[in-house]
Protein backbone atom coordinates (compact mmCIF):
# COMPACT_ATOMS: atom_id res chain seq x y z
CA UNK A 1 0.00 0.00 0.00
CA UNK A 2 1.28 3.46 -0.83
CA UNK A 3 1.68 5.75 2.12
CA UNK A 4 -0.30 8.90 1.51
CA UNK A 5 0.97 12.37 2.35
CA UNK A 6 -1.34 12.49 5.35
CA UNK A 7 0.12 9.26 6.74
CA UNK A 8 3.63 10.58 6.40
CA UNK A 9 2.65 13.77 8.09
CA UNK A 10 1.03 11.91 10.97
CA UNK A 11 4.18 9.82 11.44
CA UNK A 12 6.27 12.96 11.59
CA UNK A 13 3.83 14.48 14.08
CA UNK A 14 4.07 11.32 16.13
CA UNK A 15 7.87 11.41 16.10
CA UNK A 16 8.03 15.07 17.05
CA UNK A 17 5.39 14.71 19.73
CA UNK A 18 7.18 11.78 21.31
CA UNK A 19 10.53 13.59 21.21
CA UNK A 20 9.12 16.76 22.71
CA UNK A 21 7.32 14.87 25.47
CA UNK A 22 10.36 12.79 26.42
CA UNK A 23 12.70 15.77 26.46
CA UNK A 24 10.24 17.76 28.54
CA UNK A 25 9.93 14.91 31.03
CA UNK A 26 13.71 14.49 31.19
CA UNK A 27 14.42 18.16 31.74
CA UNK A 28 11.63 18.34 34.30
CA UNK A 29 13.67 16.05 36.55
CA UNK A 30 17.05 17.77 36.91
CA UNK A 31 18.31 15.23 39.44
CA UNK A 32 17.74 12.33 37.08
CA UNK A 33 19.58 14.30 34.47
CA UNK A 34 22.53 15.07 36.73
CA UNK A 35 22.90 11.72 38.47
CA UNK A 36 24.53 9.74 35.65
CA UNK A 37 26.91 12.64 35.04
CA UNK A 38 27.83 12.85 38.72
CA UNK A 39 28.31 9.08 38.68
CA UNK A 40 30.60 9.43 35.66
CA UNK A 41 32.74 12.01 37.46
CA UNK A 42 32.85 10.08 40.73
CA UNK A 43 33.90 6.82 39.07
CA UNK A 44 36.69 8.63 37.26
CA UNK A 45 37.83 10.22 40.52
CA UNK A 46 38.20 6.77 42.05
CA UNK A 47 40.86 5.68 39.55
CA UNK A 48 43.66 8.07 40.55
CA UNK A 49 42.85 7.19 44.18
CA UNK A 50 42.70 3.46 43.62
CA UNK A 51 45.37 2.88 40.99
CA UNK A 52 47.88 5.71 40.96
CA UNK A 53 47.95 9.51 40.77
CA UNK A 54 51.18 9.31 38.71
CA UNK A 55 50.58 11.45 35.55
CA UNK A 56 52.24 8.89 33.27
CA UNK A 57 50.14 6.01 34.59
CA UNK A 58 46.97 8.09 34.37
CA UNK A 59 47.68 9.14 30.80
CA UNK A 60 48.10 5.50 29.79
CA UNK A 61 44.82 4.33 31.24
CA UNK A 62 42.77 7.49 30.63
CA UNK A 63 40.98 6.35 27.43
CA UNK A 64 39.98 3.03 28.99
CA UNK A 65 38.88 4.61 32.26
CA UNK A 66 36.81 7.27 30.53
CA UNK A 67 35.16 4.75 28.26
CA UNK A 68 34.38 2.25 31.02
CA UNK A 69 32.95 5.02 33.18
CA UNK A 70 30.82 6.16 30.21
CA UNK A 71 29.67 2.56 29.72
CA UNK A 72 28.63 2.24 33.36
CA UNK A 73 26.96 5.65 33.41
CA UNK A 74 24.93 4.68 30.33
CA UNK A 75 23.99 1.42 31.98
CA UNK A 76 22.84 3.26 35.08
CA UNK A 77 20.39 5.37 33.10
CA UNK A 78 18.94 2.46 31.18
CA UNK A 79 16.80 0.91 33.87
CA UNK A 80 14.56 3.95 34.06
CA UNK A 81 14.30 4.21 30.26
CA UNK A 82 10.89 2.58 29.92
CA UNK A 83 10.08 1.96 33.58
CA UNK A 84 7.99 5.05 34.26
CA UNK A 85 6.09 4.74 30.99
CA UNK A 86 5.30 1.18 31.85
CA UNK A 87 4.16 1.97 35.38
CA UNK A 88 1.68 4.65 34.34
CA UNK A 89 0.38 2.77 31.31
CA UNK A 90 1.86 5.06 28.65
CA UNK A 91 3.86 2.20 27.23
CA UNK A 92 0.74 0.14 26.60
CA UNK A 93 -0.80 3.03 24.73
CA UNK A 94 2.36 3.36 22.67
CA UNK A 95 2.26 -0.32 21.77
CA UNK A 96 -1.46 -0.25 20.99
CA UNK A 97 -1.25 2.68 18.57
CA UNK A 98 -2.01 1.93 14.94
CA UNK A 99 1.22 3.53 13.71
CA UNK A 100 4.45 1.50 13.68
CA UNK A 101 6.37 1.53 16.92
CA UNK A 102 9.65 2.24 15.13
CA UNK A 103 9.44 6.05 15.03
CA UNK A 104 8.36 6.62 18.64
CA UNK A 105 11.15 4.27 19.70
CA UNK A 106 13.71 6.26 17.69
CA UNK A 107 12.38 9.46 19.27
CA UNK A 108 12.54 7.93 22.74
CA UNK A 109 16.13 6.79 22.23
CA UNK A 110 17.14 10.13 20.73
CA UNK A 111 15.71 11.94 23.74
CA UNK A 112 17.46 9.57 26.10
CA UNK A 113 20.78 10.00 24.30
CA UNK A 114 20.39 13.78 24.42
CA UNK A 115 20.24 13.69 28.20
CA UNK A 116 22.82 10.92 28.82
CA UNK A 117 25.25 10.26 25.97
CA UNK A 118 25.58 13.85 24.80
CA UNK A 119 26.50 15.38 28.19
CA UNK A 120 28.98 12.54 28.77
CA UNK A 121 30.57 13.31 25.42
CA UNK A 122 30.82 17.01 26.19
CA UNK A 123 32.22 16.39 29.66
CA UNK A 124 34.81 13.83 28.54
CA UNK A 125 37.59 16.19 27.34
CA UNK A 126 37.56 18.00 30.68
CA UNK A 127 37.88 14.76 32.62
CA UNK A 128 40.43 13.57 30.07
CA UNK A 129 42.49 16.63 30.91
CA UNK A 130 42.25 15.79 34.62
CA UNK A 131 43.53 12.28 33.81
CA UNK A 132 46.43 13.77 31.84
CA UNK A 133 45.13 12.46 28.52
CA UNK A 134 47.28 13.67 25.61
CA UNK A 135 45.72 16.86 24.13
CA UNK A 136 45.67 15.41 20.60
CA UNK A 137 43.61 12.43 21.88
CA UNK A 138 40.81 14.59 23.28
CA UNK A 139 39.01 15.24 20.02
CA UNK A 140 39.14 11.55 18.93
CA UNK A 141 37.86 10.61 22.40
CA UNK A 142 34.94 13.01 22.01
CA UNK A 143 34.18 11.87 18.47
CA UNK A 144 34.35 8.27 19.61
CA UNK A 145 31.91 8.94 22.44
CA UNK A 146 29.63 10.92 20.15
CA UNK A 147 29.46 7.97 17.74
CA UNK A 148 29.64 5.19 20.33
CA UNK A 149 27.16 6.32 22.99
CA UNK A 150 24.16 6.15 20.58
CA UNK A 151 25.09 2.51 19.94
CA UNK A 152 25.36 1.88 23.68
CA UNK A 153 22.01 3.54 24.33
CA UNK A 154 20.32 1.56 21.53
CA UNK A 155 21.75 -1.83 22.49
CA UNK A 156 20.96 -1.02 26.09
CA UNK A 157 17.46 -0.11 24.98
CA UNK A 158 16.90 -3.70 23.82
CA UNK A 159 17.90 -4.95 27.27
CA UNK A 160 15.81 -2.31 29.01
CA UNK A 161 12.77 -3.18 26.90
CA UNK A 162 13.17 -6.91 27.58
CA UNK A 163 13.47 -6.41 31.34
CA UNK A 164 10.96 -3.57 31.72
CA UNK A 165 8.34 -5.70 33.43
CA UNK A 166 10.72 -7.49 35.78
CA UNK A 167 11.09 -6.56 39.41
CA UNK A 168 14.78 -7.43 39.71
CA UNK A 169 15.70 -6.20 36.27
CA UNK A 170 18.77 -4.11 37.10
CA UNK A 171 21.50 -6.71 37.52
CA UNK A 172 20.05 -8.86 34.75
CA UNK A 173 20.07 -5.83 32.45
CA UNK A 174 23.81 -5.39 33.08
CA UNK A 175 24.45 -9.04 32.32
CA UNK A 176 22.43 -8.82 29.10
CA UNK A 177 23.93 -5.69 27.61
CA UNK A 178 27.52 -5.39 28.86
CA UNK A 179 28.85 -8.22 26.63
CA UNK A 180 27.21 -6.48 23.66
CA UNK A 181 29.04 -3.24 24.53
CA UNK A 182 32.46 -4.84 23.98
CA UNK A 183 33.04 -3.80 20.33
CA UNK A 184 32.12 -0.17 21.06
CA UNK A 185 34.49 -0.11 24.02
CA UNK A 186 37.37 -1.56 21.99
CA UNK A 187 36.87 0.77 19.04
CA UNK A 188 36.39 3.86 21.18
CA UNK A 189 39.43 3.21 23.34
CA UNK A 190 41.63 2.37 20.39
CA UNK A 191 40.71 5.63 18.61
CA UNK A 192 41.89 7.62 21.62
CA UNK A 193 44.98 5.45 22.10
CA UNK A 194 46.01 5.71 18.46
CA UNK A 195 45.70 9.49 18.62
CA UNK A 196 47.68 9.76 21.84
CA UNK A 197 50.55 7.81 20.28
CA UNK A 198 50.51 10.14 17.29
CA UNK A 199 48.76 7.85 14.80
CA UNK A 200 45.62 8.75 12.81
CA UNK A 201 42.50 7.57 14.71
CA UNK A 202 40.27 7.55 11.62
CA UNK A 203 40.09 3.73 11.31
CA UNK A 204 38.24 2.94 14.54
CA UNK A 205 36.22 6.16 14.26
CA UNK A 206 34.97 5.16 10.83
CA UNK A 207 34.09 1.72 12.17
CA UNK A 208 32.20 3.36 15.03
CA UNK A 209 30.35 5.53 12.51
CA UNK A 210 29.44 2.42 10.53
CA UNK A 211 28.29 0.72 13.71
CA UNK A 212 26.23 3.75 14.70
CA UNK A 213 24.50 3.89 11.29
CA UNK A 214 23.76 0.17 11.43
CA UNK A 215 22.49 0.37 15.01
CA UNK A 216 20.31 3.44 14.40
CA UNK A 217 18.59 1.82 11.42
CA UNK A 218 18.12 -1.73 12.75
CA UNK A 219 18.14 -1.80 16.55
CA UNK A 220 14.88 0.21 17.01
CA UNK A 221 13.06 -2.71 15.35
CA UNK A 222 14.44 -5.02 18.02
CA UNK A 223 13.50 -2.54 20.75
CA UNK A 224 9.97 -2.27 19.35
CA UNK A 225 9.59 -6.06 19.28
CA UNK A 226 11.04 -6.31 22.78
CA UNK A 227 8.64 -3.65 24.08
CA UNK A 228 5.66 -5.60 22.77
CA UNK A 229 6.87 -8.55 24.85
CA UNK A 230 7.88 -6.37 27.79
CA UNK A 231 4.37 -4.98 28.06
CA UNK A 232 2.97 -8.50 28.35
CA UNK A 233 5.46 -9.68 30.93
CA UNK A 234 4.45 -7.57 33.94
Amino acid at each position, binding site marked *: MMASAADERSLWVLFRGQLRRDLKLAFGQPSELANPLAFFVVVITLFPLGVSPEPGVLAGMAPGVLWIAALLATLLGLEALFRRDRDDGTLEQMVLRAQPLYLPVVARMLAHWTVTGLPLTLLAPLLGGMLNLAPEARLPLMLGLALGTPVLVL*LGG*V*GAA*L*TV*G*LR*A*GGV*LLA*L*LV*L*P*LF*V*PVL*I*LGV*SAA*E*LASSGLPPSGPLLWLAA*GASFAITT*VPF*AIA*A*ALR*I*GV*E*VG
Partner: protein
Amino acid sequence: MKYIPDGLRRLWHRMGSPRWFFETTGSWVPWLGGAAALLIAVGTVWGLAFAPPDYLQGDSFRIIYIHVPAAYLAQAGYILMAVCGVILLVWRMKLADMVMTAVAPIGAAFTFLALATGSIWGKPTWGTYWIWDARITSVLILLFLYLGIIGLRRAIERPEAAGRACAILAIVGVINIPIIKYSVDWWMTLHQPATFSITAAPAMPPIMWVPLLLNVLGFNLLFAVAVIQGTRTEVLVRERRTRWVNDLCLRETA
Protein backbone atom coordinates in the same frame (compact mmCIF):
# COMPACT_ATOMS: atom_id res chain seq x y z
CA MET B 1 5.73 -22.38 -0.13
CA LYS B 2 4.77 -23.66 -3.60
CA TYR B 3 8.23 -24.92 -4.48
CA ILE B 4 8.83 -26.84 -1.29
CA PRO B 5 8.38 -30.62 -1.65
CA ASP B 6 5.26 -32.04 -0.05
CA GLY B 7 7.10 -34.30 2.37
CA LEU B 8 9.19 -31.45 3.75
CA ARG B 9 6.13 -29.28 4.17
CA ARG B 10 4.35 -32.03 6.07
CA LEU B 11 7.38 -32.46 8.31
CA TRP B 12 7.42 -28.71 8.99
CA HIS B 13 3.77 -28.79 9.98
CA ARG B 14 4.26 -31.82 12.19
CA MET B 15 7.10 -30.12 13.99
CA GLY B 16 4.54 -27.64 15.19
CA SER B 17 3.34 -30.40 17.49
CA PRO B 18 5.49 -30.96 20.56
CA ARG B 19 3.67 -34.24 21.11
CA TRP B 20 4.79 -35.52 17.70
CA PHE B 21 8.38 -34.58 18.56
CA PHE B 22 8.19 -36.33 21.90
CA GLU B 23 6.77 -39.54 20.47
CA THR B 24 9.09 -39.63 17.46
CA THR B 25 12.38 -38.93 19.18
CA GLY B 26 11.82 -41.35 22.07
CA SER B 27 13.35 -44.25 20.17
CA TRP B 28 16.24 -42.15 18.79
CA VAL B 29 17.84 -41.36 22.12
CA PRO B 30 19.40 -44.79 22.94
CA TRP B 31 20.79 -45.14 19.39
CA LEU B 32 22.22 -41.65 19.22
CA GLY B 33 23.53 -41.91 22.77
CA GLY B 34 25.13 -45.30 22.09
CA ALA B 35 26.78 -44.05 18.90
CA ALA B 36 28.03 -40.94 20.72
CA ALA B 37 29.49 -43.03 23.55
CA LEU B 38 31.19 -45.40 21.09
CA LEU B 39 32.68 -42.65 18.93
CA ILE B 40 33.90 -40.62 21.89
CA ALA B 41 35.35 -43.71 23.58
CA VAL B 42 37.26 -44.81 20.47
CA GLY B 43 38.36 -41.29 19.55
CA THR B 44 39.47 -40.41 23.07
CA VAL B 45 41.34 -43.65 23.77
CA TRP B 46 43.00 -43.45 20.36
CA GLY B 47 43.85 -39.79 20.81
CA LEU B 48 45.15 -40.12 24.37
CA ALA B 49 46.95 -43.46 24.17
CA PHE B 50 47.83 -44.28 20.55
CA ALA B 51 48.32 -41.04 18.65
CA PRO B 52 52.00 -40.02 18.68
CA PRO B 53 53.02 -36.98 20.76
CA ASP B 54 53.34 -33.66 18.93
CA TYR B 55 56.91 -32.76 17.96
CA LEU B 56 56.50 -29.30 19.46
CA GLN B 57 54.03 -29.62 22.32
CA GLY B 58 54.60 -33.21 23.39
CA ASP B 59 51.63 -34.81 25.08
CA SER B 60 49.83 -31.61 26.00
CA PHE B 61 48.41 -31.27 22.48
CA ARG B 62 46.12 -34.25 23.22
CA ILE B 63 43.61 -31.99 24.89
CA ILE B 64 42.49 -30.86 21.42
CA TYR B 65 40.51 -34.10 21.24
CA ILE B 66 38.15 -32.57 23.79
CA HIS B 67 38.80 -28.87 23.29
CA VAL B 68 38.16 -28.55 19.56
CA PRO B 69 34.74 -30.28 19.50
CA ALA B 70 33.64 -28.40 22.62
CA ALA B 71 34.70 -25.02 21.25
CA TYR B 72 33.02 -25.61 17.92
CA LEU B 73 29.76 -26.78 19.49
CA ALA B 74 29.79 -23.82 21.86
CA GLN B 75 29.48 -21.49 18.88
CA ALA B 76 27.16 -23.76 16.91
CA GLY B 77 24.84 -23.91 19.94
CA TYR B 78 24.40 -20.15 20.03
CA ILE B 79 23.66 -20.05 16.31
CA LEU B 80 21.14 -22.87 16.79
CA MET B 81 19.43 -20.79 19.50
CA ALA B 82 19.22 -17.80 17.19
CA VAL B 83 17.79 -19.93 14.36
CA CYS B 84 15.18 -21.29 16.77
CA GLY B 85 14.52 -17.70 17.83
CA VAL B 86 13.77 -16.67 14.25
CA ILE B 87 11.50 -19.69 13.78
CA LEU B 88 9.70 -18.84 17.02
CA LEU B 89 9.18 -15.18 16.13
CA VAL B 90 8.19 -15.78 12.51
CA TRP B 91 6.16 -19.01 12.65
CA ARG B 92 5.32 -19.06 16.37
CA MET B 93 6.44 -22.69 16.54
CA LYS B 94 6.33 -23.76 20.18
CA LEU B 95 8.83 -26.53 19.60
CA ALA B 96 11.48 -23.99 18.56
CA ASP B 97 11.12 -22.31 21.94
CA MET B 98 11.50 -25.64 23.73
CA VAL B 99 14.66 -26.44 21.76
CA MET B 100 15.99 -22.97 22.57
CA THR B 101 15.33 -23.55 26.27
CA ALA B 102 17.17 -26.86 26.13
CA VAL B 103 20.17 -25.56 24.17
CA ALA B 104 21.04 -22.63 26.46
CA PRO B 105 22.47 -24.55 29.46
CA ILE B 106 24.04 -27.21 27.21
CA GLY B 107 25.73 -24.59 25.06
CA ALA B 108 26.92 -22.77 28.18
CA ALA B 109 28.36 -26.04 29.51
CA PHE B 110 30.25 -26.67 26.25
CA THR B 111 31.53 -23.09 26.29
CA PHE B 112 32.76 -23.59 29.83
CA LEU B 113 34.37 -26.90 28.83
CA ALA B 114 36.15 -25.17 25.94
CA LEU B 115 37.43 -22.44 28.26
CA ALA B 116 38.50 -24.91 30.95
CA THR B 117 40.34 -27.25 28.58
CA GLY B 118 41.96 -24.29 26.84
CA SER B 119 43.19 -22.93 30.14
CA ILE B 120 44.53 -26.33 31.26
CA TRP B 121 46.36 -26.59 27.93
CA GLY B 122 47.68 -23.06 28.39
CA LYS B 123 49.54 -23.89 31.60
CA PRO B 124 52.19 -26.24 30.10
CA THR B 125 52.23 -24.49 26.72
CA TRP B 126 52.12 -20.80 27.60
CA GLY B 127 53.14 -21.07 31.24
CA THR B 128 49.90 -19.55 32.55
CA TYR B 129 46.31 -20.65 33.03
CA TRP B 130 44.79 -17.45 31.78
CA ILE B 131 45.89 -14.93 29.23
CA TRP B 132 43.88 -12.24 27.51
CA ASP B 133 44.25 -13.80 24.12
CA ALA B 134 41.75 -12.74 21.45
CA ARG B 135 40.14 -16.12 21.05
CA ILE B 136 39.90 -16.83 24.78
CA THR B 137 38.38 -13.42 25.37
CA SER B 138 35.72 -13.82 22.70
CA VAL B 139 34.79 -17.28 24.01
CA LEU B 140 34.50 -15.78 27.51
CA ILE B 141 32.13 -13.16 26.11
CA LEU B 142 30.17 -15.96 24.41
CA LEU B 143 29.79 -17.55 27.85
CA PHE B 144 28.40 -14.24 29.17
CA LEU B 145 25.93 -14.13 26.28
CA TYR B 146 24.74 -17.64 27.20
CA LEU B 147 24.43 -16.66 30.86
CA GLY B 148 22.38 -13.62 29.84
CA ILE B 149 19.91 -15.79 27.92
CA ILE B 150 19.64 -18.25 30.82
CA GLY B 151 19.15 -15.38 33.26
CA LEU B 152 16.46 -13.73 31.15
CA ARG B 153 14.63 -17.04 30.74
CA ARG B 154 14.63 -17.58 34.50
CA ALA B 155 13.52 -14.04 35.27
CA ILE B 156 10.36 -14.04 33.15
CA GLU B 157 7.61 -16.15 34.64
CA ARG B 158 5.36 -16.76 31.64
CA PRO B 159 7.13 -19.23 29.34
CA GLU B 160 5.65 -17.80 26.11
CA ALA B 161 6.88 -14.29 26.87
CA ALA B 162 10.21 -15.64 28.11
CA GLY B 163 10.66 -17.55 24.88
CA ARG B 164 10.07 -14.54 22.67
CA ALA B 165 12.26 -12.30 24.84
CA CYS B 166 15.10 -14.83 24.65
CA ALA B 167 14.56 -15.13 20.89
CA ILE B 168 15.12 -11.39 20.43
CA LEU B 169 18.18 -11.46 22.66
CA ALA B 170 19.62 -14.46 20.82
CA ILE B 171 19.14 -12.77 17.45
CA VAL B 172 20.74 -9.52 18.64
CA GLY B 173 23.54 -11.59 20.15
CA VAL B 174 24.18 -13.67 17.05
CA ILE B 175 24.52 -10.54 14.92
CA ASN B 176 26.97 -9.24 17.49
CA ILE B 177 29.11 -12.38 17.74
CA PRO B 178 31.13 -11.76 14.53
CA ILE B 179 31.44 -8.06 15.42
CA ILE B 180 32.70 -8.97 18.89
CA LYS B 181 35.08 -11.52 17.40
CA TYR B 182 36.61 -9.10 14.90
CA SER B 183 36.83 -6.25 17.38
CA VAL B 184 38.60 -8.48 19.90
CA ASP B 185 41.02 -9.70 17.21
CA TRP B 186 41.72 -6.12 16.35
CA TRP B 187 42.19 -5.22 19.99
CA MET B 188 44.87 -7.92 20.16
CA THR B 189 46.76 -6.61 17.15
CA LEU B 190 46.72 -3.16 18.73
CA HIS B 191 48.09 -4.42 22.03
CA GLN B 192 50.94 -6.33 20.37
CA PRO B 193 50.97 -9.45 22.52
CA ALA B 194 53.70 -12.03 22.58
CA THR B 195 52.76 -14.44 19.83
CA PHE B 196 51.73 -17.75 21.28
CA SER B 197 50.42 -19.43 18.18
CA ILE B 198 51.78 -22.85 17.36
CA THR B 199 54.14 -21.67 14.66
CA ALA B 200 53.91 -23.46 11.36
CA ALA B 201 52.85 -26.80 12.73
CA PRO B 202 52.78 -29.25 9.82
CA ALA B 203 49.49 -30.75 8.71
CA MET B 204 48.58 -33.50 11.14
CA PRO B 205 49.16 -37.10 10.00
CA PRO B 206 46.02 -39.26 9.82
CA ILE B 207 46.89 -41.08 13.03
CA MET B 208 46.43 -37.74 14.80
CA TRP B 209 43.44 -36.31 12.96
CA VAL B 210 41.26 -39.41 12.60
CA PRO B 211 40.64 -39.60 16.37
CA LEU B 212 39.86 -35.87 16.29
CA LEU B 213 37.31 -36.49 13.55
CA LEU B 214 35.77 -39.35 15.58
CA ASN B 215 35.53 -37.12 18.62
CA VAL B 216 34.01 -34.24 16.65
CA LEU B 217 31.34 -36.61 15.32
CA GLY B 218 30.84 -38.12 18.77
CA PHE B 219 30.52 -34.71 20.43
CA ASN B 220 28.03 -33.66 17.77
CA LEU B 221 25.91 -36.69 18.61
CA LEU B 222 26.33 -36.05 22.33
CA PHE B 223 25.16 -32.48 21.84
CA ALA B 224 22.21 -33.70 19.78
CA VAL B 225 21.23 -36.28 22.41
CA ALA B 226 21.49 -33.72 25.18
CA VAL B 227 19.37 -31.22 23.25
CA ILE B 228 16.78 -33.85 22.33
CA GLN B 229 16.53 -35.05 25.92
CA GLY B 230 16.36 -31.49 27.22
CA THR B 231 13.65 -30.66 24.68
CA ARG B 232 11.68 -33.77 25.60
CA THR B 233 11.77 -32.77 29.26
CA GLU B 234 10.70 -29.26 28.31
CA VAL B 235 7.83 -30.66 26.22
CA LEU B 236 6.56 -32.60 29.24
CA VAL B 237 6.89 -29.62 31.56
CA ARG B 238 5.13 -27.19 29.22
CA GLU B 239 2.41 -29.63 28.20
CA ARG B 240 1.87 -31.04 31.68
CA ARG B 241 -1.76 -29.94 31.71
CA THR B 242 -2.65 -31.72 28.47
CA ARG B 243 -4.37 -35.05 28.36
CA TRP B 244 -1.66 -36.90 26.43
CA VAL B 245 0.98 -36.07 29.04
CA ASN B 246 -1.37 -37.14 31.81
CA ASP B 247 -2.11 -40.40 30.00
CA LEU B 248 1.60 -40.93 29.51
CA CYS B 249 2.29 -40.40 33.21
CA LEU B 250 -0.49 -42.81 34.17
CA ARG B 251 0.88 -45.43 31.79
CA GLU B 252 4.45 -44.99 33.04
CA THR B 253 3.53 -45.21 36.70
CA ALA B 254 1.02 -48.04 36.35
